[in-house]
């Protein structure tokens, strides 16, 4: 076990800015990518849903 | 219709392109003066301290050559693409690779050679030692054809595309990086008294590679654009 306390963990030996700066941006990138993909899918479903109903009518 | 020899066709294409370029003289001069202008802007931005200028001179000359060469690339195929000549070239019995190579040679003669000739003069402005002048000449002589050959691929890929100029820059500048590095390093080496031979050999090697792959890639891209 490396860390004495939760505070030590977040402090990362003084390098908190760099370490957490990296991990947060990584999390943001992944979240953004997934969110963009989801919204792309939603737009598509909406557009295709409209097309198919109009094709049927 | 007799089949003209490859050499004759090669020469004919060069002749045609040169004739067209001479008629549109503005193209030639724009590239040339752009080069001179960009090179002149750097001291204004960086300050006239001679040591600084001497240090940055190789890089400045080379980056300016890159940018000037790139500016001219959009005109390499665009005119022929617009009026249908390119399609005719692609349909002709001679290999498109050869015809593309001829066009690139003509393009280089018109846009690259003036840069090569004026660069030694400009390097004097930056205080480069006089024995570096021959290396400036040689490195650009070897390098500018590379730029034209590699750039031809980018020009062919972006034919008729919106915003082709900026996109061309984005596509082609990363590919120029090795040529830039070898070229600028050769001048720096010479200016600091070391041998430039290794760098120039690498430039030569880049040229050979560009000669082998450039026209082929550009021809492939033209066929894609014409489909």
């Amino acid at each position, binding site marked *: *076990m*490396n860390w004495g306390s939760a505070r030590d963990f977040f402090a990362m*030996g003084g390098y908190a800015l*760099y*370490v957490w700066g990296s991990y947060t941006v990584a999390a943001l990138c*992944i979240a953004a990518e997934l969110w963009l993909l989801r919204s*792309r899918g939603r737009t598509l479903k909406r557009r295709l849903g409209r097309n198919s109903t109009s094709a049927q009518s | 219709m007799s089949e003209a020899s490859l050499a004759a066709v090669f020469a004919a294409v060069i002749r045609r392109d040169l004739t067209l370029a001479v008629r549109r003289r503005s193209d030639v001069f724009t590239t040339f003066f752009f080069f001179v202008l960009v090179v002149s802007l750097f001291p204004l931005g960086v300050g006239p301290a001679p040591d600084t200028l001497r240090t940055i001179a190789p890089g400045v000359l080379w980056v300016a050559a890159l940018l000037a060469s790139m500016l001219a690339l959009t005109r390499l195929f665009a005119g022929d693409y617009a009026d249908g000549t390119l399609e005719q070239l692609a349909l002709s019995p001679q290999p498109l690779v050869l015809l593309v190579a001829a066009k690139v040679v003509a393009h280089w003669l018109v846009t690259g050679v003036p840069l090569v000739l004026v660069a030694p003069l400009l390097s004097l402005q930056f205080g480069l030692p006089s024995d570096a002048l021959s290396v400036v000449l040689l490195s650009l002589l070897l390098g500018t054809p590379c730029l034209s050959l590699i750039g031809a691929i980018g020009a062919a890929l972006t034919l008729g595309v919106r915003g082709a100029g900026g996109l061309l820059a984005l*596509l082609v500048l990363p590919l120029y990086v090795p040529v830039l590095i070898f070229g600028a390093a050769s001048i720096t080496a010479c200016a600091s008294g070391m041998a430039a031979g290794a760098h120039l050999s690498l430039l030569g090697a880049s040229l050979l590679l560009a000669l082998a792959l450039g026209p082929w890639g550009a021809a492939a891209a033209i066929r*894609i654009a014409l489909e």
Partner: protein
Amino acid sequence: MVGKLWKYASPQAFYPLAGALAPWFFAAAAVLGAIGLYIGLWLAPTDFQQGDAYRIIFLHVPAAWMSMFLYVVMAFWCGVGLSMNTRLSFMMAQALAPTGAMFTFLALWTGSLWGKPTWGTWWVWDARLTSELILLFLYVGFLSLHAAIDDVRRADRAAALLALIGVINVPIIYFSVKWWNTLHQGASVSLARAPSMAATMLLGMLIMALAAWMYAIAVSFVRVRAIILEREAEADWMRDTEAA
């Protein structure tokens, strides 16, 4: 048996397959990521030289590996598409590119944040970071070229040619930048002489790399499904699937 796999070369067949597989890859990514982070952030010992700043390596190295790996895979599918004229290959290349670009950006960002505490500067023009930067330009160029051409078929093929030219160039660029760097070597710091790895550190890094790989596959599968939907919207098989 292998013969039966060829049917997945059609968008119509691949669409449901990708849809079925993607959740599994996401799950694998999540599990491996959790384990990797646990090892990297919690278990692995503090480095003697770099302190806890080295923990960025668990992001930086996997991101850098993936950025290069995805580019090669993308170029592979581009080559397949150009030679065999398969639509799905081009779609797959388009699906991989944004993720590859994302990993490249992440590699640059984490590399920079790692550099500041270890070398004292936010950016170093060393061979790897510089080549990584150029790789980002190559990705962006690929995506921009495709976006700029209206005709999808021409866009696919032009971008594919560009990717193939890029993949030939990447080793050349790397070599030239490395050489340029040794020529101008002022600072003697070499990039992340990765702390000679304790076993835990290495394990954490490999697991994170695997997690990144699973994530990339999952995301590309989802994206390629979106691309298939966008392009094949008029196809008959589309009307039949519950997708619409």
